[in-house]
């Protein structure tokens, strides 16, 4: 696997188009990440270092762009001198890039020094010093991982978060569903809604400051709400459904346009389920579909020019595509008789749509390539997986599976080589939406 590390377009004002720097044409871009070295001998610094190292290794491995010298080989060479590393030692275990980190905890503060070097030349690629509160050493590792990723063509995901729905607050005989947010690796669960009703289908606003979601908390009727998660504030019925009388309607499945200006959603205000779009404040509502069937579950293309959705207008649910004004409707999926819940890869580099497909009685995650219409299956096995969502850089997918008997969040790379289940907390954890 040849790894191309390219300059990050955001780094300079006068920069030419991003160019690709091929570090090693023979194909192995092998990192060595020795243990972080405590700058003080106290337990707090040692423990911070230990946690930091583990998370940094996980973060960089997760990105799937690099290879790594097995940590077991580090014992075969002399101990690392962080101020003057012997690069020949590291070369001897096959390292191409050496990540040296030192950390200390001083009171409530933690400081990390990091140096990333080419082993062959001893050249320094990156030098960083981080300071912050000591209570979450994971965040320091996430930040360094994202810094390393700025040397590649992809934006790192280490500081991204996933919103989801969990029934963990249910009591006997009463199902409650609340929204939660976890770090991309399943750590740091935080509860967003606290209303004992049903709160589902979270959708990150592209700025990462708010979630649109569906809540039944008003008159037991599903409406789209907006939670500004850092302000603790929410607004209800943002699509302006009529909430009483014979013409009362409901709204489902909010999806933000990539620029964050508009929300596509499904509503039954016209008698059956159709797709609409509106400004985030509910103004300028436009009806996009018009069929006797149920049209629902919209998702936007990365340019915002097109919207995919589910319709059972042929008798069974299939994915369709239209432009963002509802014109030029054409069918997207043809394989199988039950395809639903689209997620368009947000990276313009990958032209593909993930969705949930019924395969041999169960449900699996599949991806259709828009150019070739070839379908590849991401998941396979006992039980079901559903509700795919893409990482912001388009290189990973999250979804929910019930293989273990309960529904849990899982993450796979887009080629489905590796899959991990997140420990996002108790209960059934479903409907992930991967945020910025």
């Amino acid at each position: 696997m040849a790894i191309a590390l390219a300059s990050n377009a955001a780094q300079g004002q006068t920069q030419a188009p991003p160019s690709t720097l091929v570090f090693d044409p023979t194909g192995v871009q092998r990192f060595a990440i020795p243990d972080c070295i405590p700058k003080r001998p106290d337990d707090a610094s040692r423990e911070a270092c230990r946690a930091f190292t583990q998370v940094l290794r996980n973060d960089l491995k997760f990105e799937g762009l690099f290879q790594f010298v097995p940590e077991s080989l580090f014992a075969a060479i002399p101990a690392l001198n962080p101020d003057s590393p012997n690069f020949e030692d590291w070369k001897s275990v096959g390292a191409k890039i050496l990540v040296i980190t030192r950390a200390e905890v001083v009171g409530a503060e933690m400081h990390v020094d990091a140096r990333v070097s080419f082993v062959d030349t001893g050249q320094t690629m990156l030098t960083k010093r981080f300071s912050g509160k000591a209570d979450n050493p994971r965040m320091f590792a996430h930040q360094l991982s994202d810094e390393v990723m700025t040397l590649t063509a992809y934006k790192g995901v280490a500081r991204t978060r996933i919103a989801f729905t969990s029934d963990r607050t249910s009591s006997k005989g009463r199902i409650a569903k609340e929204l939660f947010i976890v770090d991309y690796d399943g750590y740091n669960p935080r509860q967003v809604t606290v209303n004992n009703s049903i709160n589902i289908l979270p959708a990150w606003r592209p700025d990462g400051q708010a979630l649109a979601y569906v809540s039944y908390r008003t008159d037991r009727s599903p409406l789209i709400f907006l939670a500004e998660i850092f302000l603790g504030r929410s607004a209800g019925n943002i699509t302006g459904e009529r909430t009483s009388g014979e013409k009362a309607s409901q709204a489902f499945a909010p999806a933000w346009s990539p620029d964050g200006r508009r929300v596509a959603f499904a509503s039954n205000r016209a008698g059956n389920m159709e797709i609409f779009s509106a400004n985030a404040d509910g103004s300028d509502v436009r009806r996009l579909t018009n069929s006797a069937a149920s049209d629902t579950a919209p998702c936007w293309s990365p340019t915002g020019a097109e919207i995919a959705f589910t319709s059972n207008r042929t008798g069974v649910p299939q994915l369709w595509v239209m432009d963002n004004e509802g014109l030029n409707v054409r069918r997207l999926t043809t394989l199988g008789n039950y395809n639903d819940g689209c997620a368009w890869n947000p990276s313009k580099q990958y032209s593909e749509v993930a969705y949930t497909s019924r395969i041999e009685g169960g449900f699996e995650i599949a991806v259709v390539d828009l150019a070739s219409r070839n379908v590849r299956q991401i998941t396979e096995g006992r039980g079901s997986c559903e509700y795919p969502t893409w990482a912001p850089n388009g290189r990973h997918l999250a979804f929910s599976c019930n293989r273990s008997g309960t529904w849990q969040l899982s993450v796979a790379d887009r080629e489905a080589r590796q899959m991990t289940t997140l420990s996002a907390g108790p209960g059934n954890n479903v409907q992930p939406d991967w945020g910025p």
Partner: protein
Amino acid sequence: MKRAFLLLLLVAVAACGPKRPPVVTTGPGAGTSTAPGTYSPAPEPVSEGPDIQPVDSDMASSSDLSDPSGEGGPLEDVRFDYDSAQLTDAARGLLERHAQWMKSRRSLRIAVEGHCDERGTVEYNLALGDQRARATRDYLVSLGVEGAMLTTVSFGKERPLDTGSTEAAWARNRRAHFAVSR
């Protein structure tokens, strides 16, 4: 640092063909010094950002607490076949009795809830529940029940009566439920 790194990149790009090993040249400036300790970047703050605040902790819904969409209430649930919003003969018979009951109680408000079993996607089941609720409501209206008494709501597969994964549990969950209020 960034400028120096950029320079390094540009120099390296200029020097590298795709098949040759990289030639890395140190650009002017100290950012790429190999001498340890001679370059110490300004510390960058690490922060998780603002805390995530829960919303609406004061908005627990009292109507939900009193009726968890159970089988209780004066009107028996209407059952559906798998993946179908068609009213069966049994369902029509039941709804005819419900219609008589409703016509003599015009001051009531009745929410017709469409529910589904756990199979299938979240979104499709929300649409299916909506179809079930509307098919039920439309039949009641065709029997002379005042439309103003009836609202519809889909719960999809979000609030099953029976959380089991058996045929029997699925059959109980494929239903229209009637939440009656004054």
